[in-house]
């Protein structure tokens, strides 16, 4: 079982999908920063991590999900720092022998990510350069 977890500063670059030996289903999920938040136009999201706990919890989650669903491989990359609107802040790749387990694993990973991994986002609203980015 391949497990690869990484935090990356800023927006995630485009990367090719993998090929994994023996996989019948390979899937990717990308989270993109949306242009509005609470009805207001956004410039970016600022992601804050708590090293090294964030990466450790990401890894623990990846391992648990991969084991529970019998995945062949899982790869997780999440941004920290500022990610502008329209850019990718989160990328999850899953490879499995069959489709159903892969989709279920992807769903579970994302649900648990939002509850279990110490990672915060603060909105940076448009027209207020950096104003909301730091605590006062």
């Amino acid at each position, binding site marked *: 079982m391949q497990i690869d977890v990484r935090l990356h500063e800023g927006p995630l670059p485009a990367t090719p999908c993998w090929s994994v030996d023996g996989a019948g289903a390979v899937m990717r999920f990308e989270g993109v920063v949306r242009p509005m938040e609470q009805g207001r136009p956004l410039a970016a999201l600022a992601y*804050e991590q*708590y090293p090294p*706990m964030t990466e450790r919890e990401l890894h623990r989650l990846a391992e648990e999900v991969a084991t529970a669903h019998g995945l062949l491989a899982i790869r997780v990359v999440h941004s920290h720092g500022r990610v502008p609107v329209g850019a990718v802040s989160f990328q999850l790749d899953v490879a499995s022998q069959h489709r159903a387990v892969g989709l279920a694993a992807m769903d579970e990973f994302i649900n648990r990510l*939002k*509850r279990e991994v*110490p*990672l915060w*986002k*603060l909105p940076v609203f448009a027209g207020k350069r950096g104003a909301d980015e730091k605590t006062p």
Partner: protein
Amino acid sequence: MPTQVTVKLFGPQAKLAGQEAVALTLDAAAPTCRDVRAALAEAQPALTASLPGSRLAVNHEYADDDQRVSADDEVALIGMIGGG
């Protein structure tokens, strides 16, 4: 003898509190995470609403309410998270 504990804050909770750490003085010699929560709510009323949905981490591991903390431990409030 009272125990000094500093609780790190992040993201929206740091914003709500207006600071990135809260220094607490707890009466017990070996306070629990439950004691830390109570003291935190008192010291930072702005955090009260978000505390039930938050967890404490002690030395980078999630801790339950009965776990004891000492002045040497690194304590953090993990709440209002949401990656992805």
